[in-house]
């Protein structure tokens, strides 16, 4: 095996399988940005594994010319945990949906995040169950009329980023399927982060929930409805970049820049903040009351489960020597029959 890394292009990451999403589905763009991004990572394809659950989004691995497991509904983070635990050399992506990751799979997501395994979880949030043809999901807004909620949903939605921060995730970010540059950037940041990266991608399901994110993608209004956050920069948004977010105690508020209010009065983003409360507060900023933050909410360095696990193996071997089976068998009380 040669150790020189081949130069790869996005196309090299396409498998030989026909892509089978509905025409116009937001998943296509995420696939495209992923391939583009991976081609720049200098990691050979055979070192990459995509693990998914079940859902439209979860068909993703089939389309990648890497290793992949299309597992069962909701369990991809656990599959990835086993894999990464024994193969820390691999780059592991988990692809999941809002139903897969937050409904049936919520617990695995939570525990994987708290363990901080060095894997990347990309949650395609289309706020609907696509594959099963249009039931509401845990991220569907209250009142949503779907096949299973003809009089409107009555559950309060879960907010993926808030949950992740509730578990003290070390990397939390958000992007949108059609914002291709931003999405590629966020995916790259996720791949580069050491620890569990949790990325929510707003994804349009044009068949069962078309336009769910129009507020955030419509050129006419999106400058007012989203705010791209950057480390050490104030939260400014608006077509004319004339609006900002200021903290009033623990409550964020939208303010008009100019006049009495200067940039320095605004909330400055700090993705490295030790205390996750800032990230939590950002995750709570929601349309239509607030512009929704896009970008990296939090990125801190913490010990990783896979590292620690393998460190214990190493330490044990250093302290007690490489295990000798016959010696173990003969340790303690034994007796001989002659």
């Amino acid at each position, binding site marked *: 095996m040669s150790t020189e890394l081949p130069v790869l292009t996005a196309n090299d990451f396409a498998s030989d399988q026909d892509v089978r999403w509905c025409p116009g589905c937001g998943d296509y763009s995420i696939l495209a940005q992923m391939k583009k991004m991976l081609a720049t990572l200098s990691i050979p394809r*055979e070192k990459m594994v995509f693990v998914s659950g079940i859902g439209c989004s979860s068909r993703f*691995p089939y389309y990648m010319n890497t290793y992949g497991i299309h597992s069962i509904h909701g*369990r991809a983070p*656990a599959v990835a945990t086993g*894999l990464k635990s024994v193969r820390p050399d*691999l780059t592991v992506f988990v692809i999941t949906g809002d139903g897969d990751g937050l409904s049936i799979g919520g617990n695995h997501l939570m525990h994987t995040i708290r363990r901080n395994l060095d894997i990347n979880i990309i949650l395609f949030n289309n706020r609907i169950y696509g594959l099963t043809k249009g039931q509401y999901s845990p991220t569907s807004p209250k009142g949503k009329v779907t096949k299973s909620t003809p009089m409107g949903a009555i559950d309060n939605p879960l907010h993926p980023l808030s949950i992740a921060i509730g578990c003290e995730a070390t990397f939390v970010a958000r992007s949108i399927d059609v914002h291709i540059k931003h999405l590629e950037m966020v995916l790259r940041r996720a791949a580069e982060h050491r620890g569990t990266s949790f990325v929510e991608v707003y994804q349009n399901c044009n068949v069962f929930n078309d336009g769910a994110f129009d507020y955030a993608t419509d050129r006419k209004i999106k400058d007012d409805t989203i705010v791209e956050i950057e480390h050490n920069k104030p939260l400014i948004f608006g077509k004319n970049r004339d609006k900002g977010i200021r903290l009033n105690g623990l409550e964020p508020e939208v303010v008009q820049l100019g006049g009495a209010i200067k940039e320095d009065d605004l909330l400055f983003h700090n993705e490295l903040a030790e205390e996750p409360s800032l990230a939590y507060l950002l995750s709570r900023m929601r349309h239509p009351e607030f512009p929704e933050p896009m970008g990296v909410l939090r990125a801190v360095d913490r010990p990783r489960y896979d590292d620690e*696990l393998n460190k214990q193996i190493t330490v044990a071997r250093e302290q007690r020597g490489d295990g000798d089976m016959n010696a173990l068998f*003969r340790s303690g009380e034994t007796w001989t*029959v002659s």
Partner: protein
Amino acid sequence: MSTTTAGATASSTSPTSKPVVTLKGATVRFAGDSGDGMQLAGMQMTNTSALAGNDIATFPDFPAEIRAPRGTLAGVSGYQLHFSSTEIFTPGDDLNALVAMNPAALQTNLSDLHDGGLLVVNQEAFDEKGMRQAGYAQNPLEDGSLRKYQLFTVPMTSLTRRSVEGLGLSQKEADRCRNFLAMGLVYWLYGRSLDPTLRYIESKFGGKPDLAEANVRALKAGYNYGETTDAFVSSYQVDRARLKPGRYRNMTGNQALAWGLMAAAKLSNKEMFLGSYPITPASDILHELSRYKNFGVRTFQAEDEIAAITATIGAAFGGAMSLTTSSGPGIALKGEGMGLAVMLELPMIIINIQRGGPSTGLPTKTEQSDLFQAVFGRNGECPMPVIAARSPADCFDLAHEAWRIATRYMTPVMLLSDGYIANGSEPWLIADVDKMPKIPVSHPGPQEGDEPYLPYARDERLARPWGIPGTPGLMHRIGGLEKQDITGNVSYDPANHQHMVNLRARKVANVALELPPQEVFGPERGSLLVLSWGGTYGACLTAVQAAQAEGLTVAHAHLRYMNPFPRDLGDIMRRYDRVLVPELNLGQLRQLIRAEYLVPAVGLNKVEGKPFAVSEVLAKIRELAPASKS
């Protein structure tokens, strides 16, 4: 490490001055409150007897509560030991000696004591409260109700307190040494050396010299009480057994499983991954394996059983020797995951330490009622090899066998044990790992050019290749949707589905091709075949031996391969007039046998959370095998 040559230790305590009666074997049970240290007493006596060269079999039995209120019936904990100068296979039906530390222990255990058996009782525990808790209206030690036993009432509490006087122990601490006093007495009764237990005290309480000294004193006080008091007129002796020569150690089923798995990992040049969620009586495997990180064992305590099995699948995809352990309710949760494992055709081991069901059932009791779940508990046509251990030591061998089958056929394998095997112990002839058969595992190497890797191509046994991530050129995607033959791509083609369903079934059936012939103990044909599986092995074998001694033409076949069955099983069964299937369930193996072979097997079924008594099986054999035939 300490090794002793059996029989050489008898001299280490001063010989008794009283007459010694030689017995073939004896069954002794320590019973007391769960705070009384009965498990420890039992284990020490076991170890000592093993070192003395006896064959041994044990049956610990503890309450469901962590610590039920002191003195209650629910809080009674027992440890039964059978030691013998002949080969034995069960911890014994009924007791030659019972040690009862309190009224509740007497109440719940007395019925197992043989008429005329030795009954050693801590008389000081028979106060009003104690007797009320045990439901005694009057003192059984005094009302003559124990007349048919050899009753020894021992003032254990004051004897113990006196023996530790001067060490500055609190009364509570002093009383905690009572189990050592009881042990000492039993050691004297059976002429056992105190040395192994003295060594144990040394190693365990080394850091607390006062406690160590207290326990030593209590132990010796018990021993001396036996020797000096007039109550005991004779002691007993059980000579060493003629076991297969070699070096032995005492092993519980769960420890044997853990070690067998580690050996299998080594023999296949693999590091091990265990994904598990704690559950009684399987947790001890997790505990045991998590101690051997220097053997490259990675244990992952998952958030639940589903995460445990799916992490196991992930690790198997990564190329590790991968397994998951649980018990009935946890296995129920793994059903969907097992289906995925079958579809992915990755090798792994799923271990079920069965317990009393259904639902939460009787978590600390034994049962064999998860066989159906093992064979059928998944959606779709979802075949999986199932094997079952028959005894504690057998777990070691079956771990190897499970991994051999898993890797040879690229399939998950279900290994069944049960609470009785898991916690019970017996001597294990220590294996030499260098002489054990290797388990060859290979992964296809890197591949260049455009030739696609074919993850679902197959060898002559229908196993697919185990190409693992990191290998250049083998990139492939697998999943739970039906797969195209050879390529492994998703396929909705009807004919392919039929083909793949058949393939998976044939592959598992193929496991039978390489199995050894079914062993049969007894006449080649006759009036009755006793067909058993799992932890009832010892009781069935012993019962058959007894029946044969009575002249009945009865044979015993014990199944370790539950799916597929050994190829010759049908022929064997047809050589007997009748087939009896004793099981700790309502007849699950019997159902499988009847369906497969149309043999009108009859059952002996018991679901009481405890193993068969030999006598139960023997009685059924006598009923079915007419004495006239021979």
